[in-house]
């Protein structure tokens, strides 16, 4: 595994959690109830903490080292390597929960492996802390999927549509390029094929419990890992980055 492959792996971890964190932060003051408003922003803050750790490590590996802030605020959309799923707009509460649920299960499986490997102890330490947080995220989003799916006819139909709409972005989670393959071969990353089987079985269990189904014959979309994003990312980044770009180095 080369330095640049390890950087890709770290940027993907960091960008996934950063972009999702920003999206969840957009719910602040807008969630359906106060308690859920706090829950979503708590999760956003967990993800932001993970982002800081991953991006700090990534920045140290660059030939011209960069801080986590520089990576977060001074890269353009084409330099971000997050999954397309995570940059999708919040939509309604069910859309946000569906996006979160599909990612949380994936993230738990990936980070559990990162915590147990001994190839890179820095990453293992970050992951060991993150696993506890992600377990709670899985719990939170899974219970909501069941509540909505098993709730009223309207909530059932709406969360089913959310799952259907977002399903096309799930294939990308398990696609590997050279960096991923190198990570897997070194033992840092899990084997994506078996991770996909495990993910599908867990997702299916919860959807079954919720009375929901997995959509069939969906054309998968990808590109996020290569910096080819949907238009939503640049719009989101514009808001996220405007202040540090207008006032570089500002402190408050």
């Amino acid at each position: 595994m080369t330095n640049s492959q390890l950087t890709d792996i770290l940027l993907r971890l960091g960008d996934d959690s950063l972009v999702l964190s920003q999206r969840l932060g957009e719910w602040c003051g807008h969630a359906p109830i106060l308690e859920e408003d706090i829950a979503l922003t708590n999760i956003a803050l967990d993800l932001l903490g993970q982002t800081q750790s991953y991006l700090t490590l990534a920045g140290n590996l660059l030939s011209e080292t960069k801080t986590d802030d520089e990576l977060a605020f001074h890269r353009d959309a084409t330099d971000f390597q997050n999954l397309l799923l995570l940059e999708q707009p919040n939509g309604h509460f069910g859309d946000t929960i569906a996006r979160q649920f599909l990612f949380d299960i994936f993230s738990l499986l990936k980070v559990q492996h990162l915590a147990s490997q001994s190839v890179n102890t820095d990453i293992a330490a970050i992951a060991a802390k993150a696993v506890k947080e992600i377990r709670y995220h899985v719990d939170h989003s899974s219970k909501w999927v069941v509540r909505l799916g098993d709730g009223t006819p309207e909530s059932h139909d709406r969360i089913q549509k959310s799952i259907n709409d977002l399903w096309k972005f799930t294939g990308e989670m398990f696609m590997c390029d050279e960096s991923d393959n190198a990570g897997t071969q070194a033992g840092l990353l899990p084997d994506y094929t078996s991770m996909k089987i495990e993910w599908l079985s867990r997702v299916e269990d919860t959807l079954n419990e919720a009375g929901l189904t997995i959509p069939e014959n969906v054309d998968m979309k990808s590109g996020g890992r290569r910096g080819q994003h949907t238009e939503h990312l640049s719009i989101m980044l514009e808001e996220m980055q405007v202040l540090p770009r207008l006032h570089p180095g500002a402190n408050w």
Partner: protein
Amino acid sequence: MSNNNWPLWEVFIRSKQGLSHRHVGSLHAADAEMAIGNARDVYTRRQEGVGIWVVPASDITSSSPDDSEKLFDPANDKVYRHPTFFVLPKEVDHM
């Protein structure tokens, strides 16, 4: 944010092992499981607790303020009942 019809729950947090649960506030939730989750998010995110109880507010019976004379005044003038003459050893923490 809209109002909802979810029931109100009273939240009790145990801040440390060995201490008793204390009432910290209330919140709305559809069921007990959600109430625990919400309590975790609303009341323990700054390391306030190691244990949570949630109780449906409707299940709590409280004394009426109108009855306070009858309930509490009689204890006031019976100094011999007040356990203030004893010095507690330091080891008996949190009694």
